[in-house]
């Protein structure tokens, strides 16, 4: 029964981008959806979960300084943590390295990026750190969190919510439409 409910809940249509901003991001441009809690990391809970997808945006970006890690590469969609993708995406995984309230971070609901263990160690980045993701074709940007750890050398891997937020279209099998590229800056 659960299985049937899960299958019927899936949508194999192409995701449409929503929100996003063009040009050089400003603080307002970077706020996608509604803020969901503050300084979210790992197992912290959200007290005011409502509104649009994502982790919101950092309250004070002036304290970030230079990015600890930057990559510029083809975008790849990580659907991990999104139960509805289990039957469609051959790369799907139930788990994400980061958690919210002890549960995986749902790719469809939260804007997150993926780093490798080596990238995190070399840059000093940690799960929960902020990342600015920019669509190189359109200039649309949004804030995301580092919430999953992938294989060595992987770059440009972003969640469904993040892809949508920067105007990248993708299919339910996680393939992107076209060959969009993204710049990911981790702070």
């Amino acid at each position, binding site marked *: *029964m*659960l*299985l049937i409910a*899960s299958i019927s809940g899936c949508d194999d249509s192409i995701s449409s981008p929503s929100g996003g901003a063009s040009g050089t991001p400003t603080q307002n441009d970077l706020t996608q959806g509604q803020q969901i809690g503050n300084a979210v990391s*790992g197992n912290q809970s959200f007290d005011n979960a409502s509104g649009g997808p994502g982790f919101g945006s950092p309250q004070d970006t002036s304290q970030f300084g230079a990015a*600890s890690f930057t990559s510029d590469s083809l975008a*790849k969609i990580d659907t*991990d943590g999104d*139960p509805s993708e*289990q039957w469609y995406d*051959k*790369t799907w*995984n*139930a*788990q*994400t*390295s*980061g*958690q919210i309230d*002890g*549960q*995986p971070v749902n790719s469809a609901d939260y804007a997150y990026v993926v780093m*490798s*263990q*080596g*990238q*995190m*160690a*070399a*840059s*000093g980045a*940690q*799960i*929960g750190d902020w990342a600015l993701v920019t669509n190189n074709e359109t200039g649309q940007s949004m804030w995301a969190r580092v919430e*999953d*750890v*992938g*294989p*060595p*050398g*992987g770059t440009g891997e972003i969640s469904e919510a993040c892809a949508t937020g920067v105007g990248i279209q993708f299919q339910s099998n996680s393939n992107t439409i076209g060959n969009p590229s993204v710049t990911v800056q981790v702070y």
Partner: protein
Amino acid sequence: MRISLISVLTTAFISNFAWAESTLEPKQIPAPDGSYSLEISDAVRVVNSGGSPSLTLASNLEGVQRVDAKWSPDSRRVVVVIGYTRGSGVEAAYLDGSGWHKALQPDTDLPTDALARQAGVSGRLVSQSCSLADWLDSRRIRVTGELIFSGQKKVHYGYTLVFTGEPGHLDRGGFEEGVIKGVEYHVR
């Protein structure tokens, strides 16, 4: 028949939706001569025989599923694999005249494309894991690993991790890069 089918489906459902609980258990791995230990708890540290920390290799283990470590026969080096659900990394600590240092094997070491070609596999790399095998001597240890590409296509590989003895450059995370290096990568 119907009951067993429901049971199988329910089991599959639950196992696929199991949350990412860390399976790490605190432990200490002593060096062969007992002078130091590798402590795995809320962090990964080299501690001396009195239990005082000498070096912290990893201070945040959130999301880490597995930590493997092996000391060199001369007790001057320890290699650590830090494993997450979809990826792992190799770090090391070594002792010289000035104390303990930490080193990192850079991602660029792993010839993913070449290994995939050699194995006749293509697709998107989904996950990677590796394990420590035996020390060949006090500067070289064998490592085995697995790459999983989309469609569950797997490539098993091996290589030798070498302490080069060359000075490394310090990265932003405080690791010396270039001190450990993978050589003789091959498909198993």
